[in-house]
């Protein structure tokens, strides 16, 4: 057996050019497969994180009436707020949380109007939970203007021709159904990864919100909660639901099913790409080994004549094929790992398609990243493919009749 391994191993190096072509294609195949995988899962991960950080957070809590019908007067009662604050403070997995006031309305300038959510936040607490303050493209975060400042998204600024220092008119109905309109000064323009988020959300100070709707303070419609670990979202949401009444906690995947759905479908799509790459490699390997077996017809015939049995010949070709397929795999994995690590920290700027990505809700700066399991997956796939690929040439070699094979010129 050791000798069969030795022969198979040395056979791999006999036709350097031909083997070199196989090595190169395996190397490039692994690298291309993993790198595409890394770019796309990097994008997805970033998009997910970006969406969670800038808007969703990990868990949100709303009152049940609000969930059924988003209305200004479907806010939490004082006793609910006390109960929820208590529950959140008592849950050790909770990192931090903030309370928001929300009303649906419109924003307008001389250039047009847009439907949007007016969100009243407490700037100091909000910035612990979401990253809007880090995503400002222009202006500042509730520090400059004393009088009714607002933060608007990049897309809304474009649509309504707004700049920092200009005024946006926000209008909505108060709890009694009265029509309220007020001018807000744009203090900052933020750019989240998502165009639709940027178009339809305006942040103002909670005190201005309360002032406008002339309601009591502590006018809260939404809790946004961050955990120490995003993976706990579902479990903690369920736990909170058992502790609070007439309100519901939902994890991010429930609030935005498309976000978690995209995770799964993208995974399947990428698997298809990997399978295609491995399939193509398999063809190349089969072809190379068939040529080798054909070329060595006399030699294989001689081996059969001198007493090597068919099983050994079969095993020898199988081993040779596996060696041929796997020799370049470590180098491919290494190059993939190096390039993914490098670009994973420096990022790749996809400027050419940046605007299209923004529309799809993805940052134009991409940081490739893959699970370490992807390296294992592709290694196993190539190993599996090489075993499959070895069967055809090995069977071909078995069909040789020793007498014919030694005669073959």
């Amino acid at each position, binding site marked *: 057996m050791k*000798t069969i391994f*030795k022969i198979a191993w040395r056979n791999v190096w006999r036709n350097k050019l031909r083997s070199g072509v196989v090595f190169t294609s395996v190397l490039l195949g692994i690298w291309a497969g993993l790198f595409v995988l890394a770019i796309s899962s990097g994008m997805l991960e970033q998009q997910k994180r970006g969406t969670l950080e800038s808007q969703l957070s990990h868990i949100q809590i709303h009152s049940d009436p609000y969930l059924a019908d988003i209305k200004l007067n479907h806010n939490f009662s004082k006793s609910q707020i006390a109960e929820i604050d208590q529950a959140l403070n008592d849950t050790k997995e909770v990192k931090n949380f903030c309370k928001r006031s929300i009303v649906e309305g419109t924003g307008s300038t001389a250039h047009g109007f847009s439907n949007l959510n007016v969100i009243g936040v407490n700037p100091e607490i909000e910035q612990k939970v979401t990253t809007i303050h880090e995503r400002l493209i222009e202006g500042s975060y509730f520090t400059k203007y004393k009088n009714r400042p607002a933060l608007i998204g990049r897309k809304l600024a474009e649509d309504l021709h707004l700049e920092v220092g200009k005024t946006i008119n926000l209008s909505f109905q108060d709890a009694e159904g009265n029509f309220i309109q007020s001018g807000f000064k744009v203090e900052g323009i933020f750019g989240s990864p998502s165009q639709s988020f940027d178009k339809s959300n305006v942040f103002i100070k909670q005190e201005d919100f309360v002032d406008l709707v002339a309601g009591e303070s502590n006018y809260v419609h939404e809790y946004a909660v961050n955990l120490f670990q995003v993976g706990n979202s579902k479990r903690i949401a369920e736990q909170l639901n058992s502790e609070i009444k007439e309100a519901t906690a939902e994890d991010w995947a429930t609030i935005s099913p498309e976000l978690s759905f995209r995770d799964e479908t993208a995974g399947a799509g990428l698997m298809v790409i990997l399978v295609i790459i491995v399939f193509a490699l398999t063809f190349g390997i089969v072809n190379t080994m068939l040529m080798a077996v054909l070329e060595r017809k006399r030699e294989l015939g001689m081996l059969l004549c*001198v*007493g090597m049995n068919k099983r050994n010949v079969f095993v020898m070709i199988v081993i040779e094929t596996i060696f041929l397929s796997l020799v370049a795999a470590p180098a491919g994995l290494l190059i993939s790992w190096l390039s993914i690590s490098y670009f994973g920290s420096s990022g790749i700027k996809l400027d050419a398609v940046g605007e299209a990505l923004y529309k799809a809700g993805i940052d134009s700066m991409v940081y490739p990243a893959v699970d370490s399991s992807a390296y294992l997956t592709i290694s196993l796939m190539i190993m599996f493919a090489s075993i499959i690929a070895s069967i055809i040439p090995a069977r071909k070699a078995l069909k040789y009749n020793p007498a014919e094979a030694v005669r073959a010129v």
Partner: protein
Amino acid sequence: MSVIKTENLVKTYTQGEYEIKAVDKVSLEIEKGEFTVVCGPSGSGKTTLLNIIGGLDDPTSGSVVINDKEITSLSGNQLIDFRLRNIGFVFQAYNLIPVLTAKENVGFVMLLQGKSEAERNERTEELLKAVGLEKEMKKKPTQMSGGQQQRVAVARALASKPQFILADEPTANLDSASTENLLDIMAKMNEEEGITFIFSTHDQRVIDRAKRVITFQDGKIFSDVSA
């Protein structure tokens, strides 16, 4: 008792509508210790005969008995095992495994026979010395001349201690000096150790050294002369 005995051996090949009788009713006996040449023009059926005797090919009809054993009735794997234990082969070319050294090539059949490493080492060295290649043991076939390669093939054929050696035109690709050298080695082994050799050839230099010359023509024995 004869080592090889064939009776009414027939091998026909059909090529399109033609039937070629490559071997036509050949009956012959070969005794232990012979140094026999099968000669005849190209296409006369020498290779076909040797292949059938060596169990590489099935006859269309007739029987081959080696040491009282009818080999035409053996199954594929039995036949391979039988060849491994009883017959040594030397072909015209492509005798050796290109990626193994001379020593590894000779040791290979013994390895297939399941011989221990110590036994293999001892015998390969002894055999390579006998064919005058003690200095070439670590060389690969491509680093050796055609004559040296054929000598390694003879050593390899002997390694398994076979009943006899079948050599199909072993000198066809060799120059005169290498031919003489190879024949000297084989004749010496035949003389000193009583190893049975059966050659096919149309090389007069080989025929001159033979103790028995069987001449083939159109698949039939034309003459059978012992010196």
